């Protein structure tokens, strides 16, 4: 059994690469942080890996829009390298900024003809960056990363996380295709924890193969019990956090 190798693809401004590597390590994966420049110089390097993850952060400052320049770089400099990676069985995960990037490539929710995105992550309804914990419900369907996951708590930390689609019918077709696999749910008092005004409370989506997955919440920030804001109230302080299972699911496919 050979542990899968994970490429943590980073760009200037990526800043969750270390904790994302840590999460993969905890589940037996072998992560390597690779700068996008390195991959552009040597695209064949991708063949060393089975899982690709674009972590959170502010790639290129999110200066035009979140993830825009990183996505543009992938589209213009790497061609269909990531599509090939997926087609030969690779898994692709985009977390927060990584999700914002994936949505602007052909990988997640693009028009099959034009290749242009049909969904986007707009500014939060509040107009502000927000760091808080949310309740999530998953309908994994074919999404590899969410297998066996029903409910979990995770933190969000973003300014642009409001999931919007081109129009109502686009939303419905994604829903019908089972791509809207992770949603914000209510807390114990019945109040919605949707932190950003996302359409349909969508927090994460997968592609039609179930092997490409993007989400706004940060599973890598809940791999240890003490990362939960109420951990001191819980009995199990030595255990792991609920986010770890997403990484476990990915790694276990290959081992």
């Amino acid at each position, binding site marked *: 059994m050979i542990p899968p190798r994970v490429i943590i693809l980073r760009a200037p401004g990526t800043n969750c690469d270390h904790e994302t590597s840590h999460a993969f390590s905890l589940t037996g994966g072998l992560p390597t942080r690779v700068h996008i420049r390195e991959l552009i110089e040597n695209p064949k390097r991708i063949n060393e890996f089975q899982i690709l993850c674009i972590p959170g952060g502010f790639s290129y400052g999110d200066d035009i829009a979140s993830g825009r320049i990183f996505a543009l770089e992938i589209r213009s400099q790497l061609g269909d390298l990531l599509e090939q990676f997926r087609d030969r069985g690779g898994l692709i995960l985009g977390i927060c900024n990584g999700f914002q990037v994936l949505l602007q490539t052909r990988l997640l929710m693009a028009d099959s003809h034009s290749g242009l995105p049909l969904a986007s992550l707009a500014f939060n309804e509040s107009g502000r960056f927000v760091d808080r914990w949310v309740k999530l419900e998953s309908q994994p369907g074919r999404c590899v990363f969410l297998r066996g996951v029903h409910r979990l708590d995770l*933190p969000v930390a973003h300014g642009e996380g409001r999931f919007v689609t081109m129009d109502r019918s686009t939303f419905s077709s994604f829903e019908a295709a089972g791509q809207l696999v992770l949603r914000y749910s209510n807390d114990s008092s019945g109040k919605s924890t949707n932190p950003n005004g996302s359409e349909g409370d969508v927090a994460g989506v997968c592609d039609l193969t179930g092997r490409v997955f993007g989400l706004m919440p940060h599973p890598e920030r809940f791999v240890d019990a003490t990362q939960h804001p109420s951990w001191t109230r819980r009995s199990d302080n030595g255990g792991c956090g609920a986010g770890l299972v997403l990484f476990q699911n990915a790694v276990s496919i290959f081992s």
Partner: protein
Amino acid sequence: MLWEVEVHSKSPLLDHAAKLLVSGARQLGIGGCARAATAVGWLIEGSLERADVERLATEVLCDRVTETVRFDRVGGDTLNRGPQGLGTVLNVLPRPGVTDPAAQSAMSAMELVGIRPTAVRSLRKYWLPQLDQADLDCIAWKLLANEAVHEVVIGPLAITQLTRGTPWNFSQTSVRLEGLDDRSFEALSRKLCLALSAIELSTVRDHFQTLGRDPYEIELETIAQTWSEHCCHKTLGSPVDHSGPRGPVHFDNLLKETVFAATAKVRAALGKDDWCVSVFRDNSGVVRFDDDHDICIKVETHNHPSAIEPYGGAATGLGGVIRDVLGTGLGAKPIANLDVFCVGLPDTSPHDLPAGVIHPKRLLDGVVAGVRDYGNRMGIPTIGGAVAFDQGYLANPLVYCGTVGIMPRGTAETRVQAGDFIVVAGGRTGRDGIHGATFSSEELSSTSEAQSGGSVQIGHAIHEKMLVDFILAASQARLFHAITDCGAGGLSSAVGEMGAELGARVDLDKVPLKYTGLSATEIWISEAQERMVLAVAPGDLDSLVKHAVAEGVEATAIGQFTGDGKIVLCWNGQTVGELDCSFLHDGRPKILRRARWNKSSFTPLEWKDQPAGSAQDLFEKMLLDLLSAPDVASKEWIIRQYDHEVQGTSVIKPLLGPGSGPADGSVVRGVLGQPRGVAIGIGIKHHLGRLDPYAMTAVALVEAISNVIACGADPSRIALLDNFCWGDCRTEEGMGSLVEACLACHDMALAFAAPFVSGKDSLNNVFRGTDSSGGIRELSIPPTLLATAMGQVADVRRAVTTDLKMAGSVLYLLGSTGSHFAGSQLEVLGGVRGGHIPSIDTVACNKLFHALAAAMQEGFVSACHDLSDGGLAVALAESVIGGMLGARVELGCVPCDGTSDDAKHCDWVRAFSETPARFLCEVPRSSAETFERLMHDVPYAAIGEVTSHDRLEIIGVAGDSVARVTIERLSDAWRRLSMRF
């Protein structure tokens, strides 16, 4: 050809900027602005065809799902029509030369699709209904733009090209000092913005007399930067004759003989167990952490720039302190940030603002946004902070930013070698931030905004993030001998400091520039952000540059450290300035200062008249008013805007429990996956500053220490930092209050064996301006010492939080309560006047810290909250809010050493007095007996229990209920202020 692209939201619902504009205009009292629309604009220059611009617009600049785009040549017809029939357009652009990060990023994005413009500038466009000019100006300058960094164009843009500089024509200017008298020296200092006194300028004249010439401008500037208050503790390091309540005392060097001396004594007493590694020498203070790592910390102020441009000032303040940590030893990795703001009251009437002063609410919005945008982009969790309110900060807001770093053991010591290249890495040099160091040493005035606009910098966080990635990689490969950040004073300070012993030769023409036109002097003193200076062995230069290129960072050798003890500045091979290091660093005349502080007079406690009502109504009203007092109220609106969880290390977060109650301190793991943690606590007691600077400082320090103890930190490993922000220190009293604060620092460090490891001062925070009726108005801040404590938690799984955990647990109060209302929140609210100034029994306090830490170590304490602003009642309420559990306590059980005449006042003392060093602890009933055994040596009492009811219930000394308040009412009061932002 100059093109303009506009990006509009498809739905007005997504146009947040328009919503803010409309509500902002309403707040300004401007009618007729019920609607607005906004767009992001881009000016793109280059020989581009329409088809090129269309590609840029649709593929690079616009999100087709949420946005629409239109473009034309600047002034073209397509852009004339306002959206939604709105007639007036208002354009806000960064001034030429001001850093425009978005434009820089956009330019590199455009290159990705194969289109290369020659210049890009970002702008914001606002469309409004027809308004008169005065209202438009008001909206432009009070809501949308800041004169220091923006220009505003009302109506369509008519520019034809983006300004670029023209090359500087070399010239060398001497400054004549011969024959000047004191008044002329002072005039010269003001004119050139040198912040040098007549005595200092005459010392410079005498030095150059021996060389037989006048100084060149560049030399005089170098001296001004190096001798600035900002760079060398000019006041705190001076000789002082002080007459204080403990008798007269003389210091040859105030700081050395108080703060530094205390640290030296603590270290000597620790002997071979000394855990300090590098203190008061490097850019931050370094202490031992675990077998493999040291940790370091620094807190800086960025007050003057933030007063003028809150967003840029706060952002670059944070950027600067992050570089301090990055520039410590061979480079430390930043692992946590903190920020503290002191501002005027948020409900200040706009009519009470002195001319040229930004309203506290707008200011607070701006500084929070600055820290948010910089800190979040850096990927460093902002884990702690505070906001202190006082009208004394109206014109002189304080912005403190701190950073904690971690580094491999053995990398704290560095040594520059003769022959090392001087390498500047990171951002390019521009005209930004000229004279920041000397400007920050001057007083502010109503014209500062216009006068010193050049001293305001705009940060580019991603450049700094790239710099961090590069430096940490290069450090791991040991590719440099020493490093420091380019902060105040720019290259002149950085190279001057690194070359203080060896000397250096710098080729200023080799420094990479943002645009041409900078003179050699401007290059030398520019405070352009995101730059570091490294000393690199000649054999390592190629490898270092390769590492830089891999992260997209520019690194350029601009000279060499020489060994001849001189700073030599060259332009295209020609020497343009030469200074002896010995004169530069040791030539500053020491000026004896006189200081005086009379013992703070005791005013007897006086209860203010209260409105009629039952004892319970009065008590409850006081409690709810205290909870919504600006200093106490929830800062959730700020905290949630900061990413406090990035890096995955946070263990005690700033908001806790199901009710998001406040934390005392914060804890992060030093290394992901490892159990050892760093605890950060802060203390600030600004309301005591004017009454008694010694007490203010001592209480702030004890509060900072208490905050980390309450989280579970080891009391025998606490490092302290001091940040002095003072008003006028040129008077005997001003200086006297500073001396008293230094004495308190000395005494507390010794008492708690807690060494100071770093510190900083910002003096002369005085504003001179005119008020609305034209009268001269002078505003000075209260003496404010920000105390920061950095503790260590052996195993973060033993850390303790403030939220109540379980109904049935016993509530204990540790520490004895006195009648300490001077400078208290109740006094600020007007409920009481005078009373004792808090004093600290350091021996008892130390015992308490150790006893509590031992109980926590054993796992007996399930919640702990340090009593601070608002006393016991507020601490109880906060723990109730966090845990969403009720509590019932009896004030009659509170250990109390004060006496009062009647039951009502007796209750108020026990509930609201602010005696320092007390803790509220929740202990499970099963551990109560053993807990009490550990407390045998300290004053403590069981005062009640945690309940499953939804309320806080307080029983007075007479046995009747004085408060029965639901959690919801407590929570609403505590969150009221946060809701307004």
